[in-house]
């Protein structure tokens, strides 16, 4: 009997009953990766030695004081390949970092190691987290566990697929415009983006620093909450990390939504939605109403400007952040006689298409003569978008809406960049405003998963879990697994 496909809570309980050891959980996770990753390509590198060490350490921690041990102690996890782990290959899905081994470990990862979590490996992603399908990885696309011909979403597609395929019960990704929530939706798992500043970005390879947040994937809301709590909180090494105490959402998971005011933003239910997504999300909202929530329609009129705002701000920040890839201190270098030519060739050969497109767009938007018309204007519209959220949160406690306008699409089906960017139209505004948001499975359309998104005010992370938890417990979607999870 394998433990693959169990939730982290089920594994933690089995560990404490002495039915399994961290070593067995790790062996099962590896066997599942070995069996399925040939068709999924979710992993870029394994962290075998580290995992072996952590499994031993976790066993000792559980032996010493099981009740005090973290719910993640002894649990196999996977890490998006934008999180630095000292001594292990970290590529961000880019050729320019092929072979790079960071000299230090990200705070998020260090906190996982400290509580005895067992990192199985680094997961595939769109290059530098830029994309919505994981097709922009320099190391090949990732399959969706529900249909390997389809994309898992992105950019954290490998982390979403790893949980969806039962390889690990918990993984971590990063979300700049939807890169955790959208792949979670497409892979039928829970994906959580915390309030901006809740998670340390130290050791997270930067894409757009004012938007990037680390967050977990899991089968259940409770597992996602535990995975969040294990990593969240102030880090003196990240000056944007918030000093506020982290509320443990655990206590709220059983509280329900009776009497809560939940808003449905009209603009999120508009024309761009696939009919199957609209149907499932409408049903999910009816479930919340039946549980006693007061549902009301609200309006976020600038929603359609979110995408344009994002596609100025994120590329502008990326063009600045990616200036560091110069082939001097680390990473790949293409040698030419002059330094300028070396830089040009190193970056021209090291970066893929999407990264080049965004570096060009961001450089243009920041260049002399265009800064006011693009970058400054986008920053002002960002304020409008954030204010509209503030205004609706005067009258509702949280928002419920679709995560992605689409279910998983076939690999190669979307070639037009703007059509690809539209996949994140309903997740981007949340990053622009720095809010917490979750995607929780809410059924299927044509046998492909659909996700319900819950959004709450800044620092009300626990409330997101409360609403998502109430919905999950009233339905059975979280118990569904992709057919490939069970061994043939």
């Amino acid at each position, binding site marked *: 009997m394998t433990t693959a496909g169990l939730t982290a809570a089920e594994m933690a309980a089995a560990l404490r009953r002495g039915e399994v050891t961290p070593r067995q959980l790790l062996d099962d996770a590896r066997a599942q990766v070995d069996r399925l990753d040939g068709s999924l390509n979710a992993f870029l590198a394994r962290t075998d030695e580290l995992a072996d060490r952590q499994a031993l350490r976790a066993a000792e921690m559980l032996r010493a004081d099981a009740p005090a041990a973290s719910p993640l102690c002894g649990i196999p996890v996977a890490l998006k390949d934008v999180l630095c782990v000292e001594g292990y290959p970290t590529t961000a899905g880019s050729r320019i970092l092929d072979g790079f081994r960071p000299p230090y470990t990200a705070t998020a990862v260090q906190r996982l190691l400290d509580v005895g979590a067992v990192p199985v490996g680094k997961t595939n992603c769109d290059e530098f987290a830029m994309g919505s399908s994981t097709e922009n990885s320099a190391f090949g696309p990732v399959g969706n566990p529900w249909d390997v011909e389809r994309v898992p979403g992105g950019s954290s597609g490998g982390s979403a697929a790893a949980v969806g395929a039962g390889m690990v019960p918990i993984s971590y990704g990063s979300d700049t415009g939807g890169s955790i929530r959208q792949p979670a939706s497409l892979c039928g798992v829970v994906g959580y983006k915390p309030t901006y500043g809740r998670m340390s970005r130290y050791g997270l390879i930067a894409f757009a620093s004012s938007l990037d947040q680390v967050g977990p994937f899991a089968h259940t809301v409770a597992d996602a909450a535990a995975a969040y709590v294990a990593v969240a909180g102030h880090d003196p090494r990240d000056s944007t990390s918030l000093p506020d105490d982290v509320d443990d959402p655990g206590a709220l998971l059983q509280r329900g939504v009776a009497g809560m005011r939940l808003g449905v933003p009209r603009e999120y239910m508009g024309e761009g939605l696939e009919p199957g997504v609209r149907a499932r999300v409408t049903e999910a909202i009816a479930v919340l109403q039946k549980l006693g929530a007061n549902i009301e329609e609200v309006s976020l009129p600038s929603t359609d400007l979110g995408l344009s705002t994002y596609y100025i701000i994120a590329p502008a920040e990326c063009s600045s952040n990616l200036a560091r890839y110069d082939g001097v201190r680390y990473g790949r270098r293409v040698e030419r006689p002059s*330094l300028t030519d070396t830089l040009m060739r190193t970056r*021209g050969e090291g970066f893929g298409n999407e990264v080049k497109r965004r570096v060009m767009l961001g450089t243009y938007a920041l260049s002399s003569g265009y800064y006011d018309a693009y970058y400054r204007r986008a920053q002002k519209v960002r304020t409008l978008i954030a204010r509209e959220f503030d205004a609706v949160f005067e009258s509702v406690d949280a928002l419920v809406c679709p995560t992605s306008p689409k279910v998983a699409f076939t690999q190669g089906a979307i070639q037009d960049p703007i059509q690809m960017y539209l996949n994140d139209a309903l997740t981007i505004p949340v990053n622009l405003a720095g809010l917490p948001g979750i995607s929780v499975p809410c059924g299927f359309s044509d046998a492909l998963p659909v996700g319900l998104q819950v959004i709450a005010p800044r620092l009300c992370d626990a409330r997101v879990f409360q609403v998502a938890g109430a919905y999950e417990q009233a339905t059975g979607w979280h118990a569904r697994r992709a057919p490939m999870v069970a061994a043939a």
Partner: protein
Amino acid sequence: MPLSPEEVAHVATLARLGLSDEEKRRIGAELDLILEHISALQRADISDVPETAQVGNLVNVWREDEPAQSLHQEQALAEAPDTDGQYFKVGAIQE
């Protein structure tokens, strides 16, 4: 207004991004389409709206300037494509 080939080449130089002629043509055309889509921003009423550069609401994060452990020279150089053992090495910056 579409970007001219000269503008595309200028932006690529600013970004120190070596692009082939084919890439310049293709990315230039894609940027035109994206910029056209983004022009929606021009209709937003932003009079008297301040800019948002960050959403953490933190102001002036200070810390004591205390010595702490940092990377050893060896570690810092370990990933460099070229060093002389003590420093990073690059090609000539002047003719």
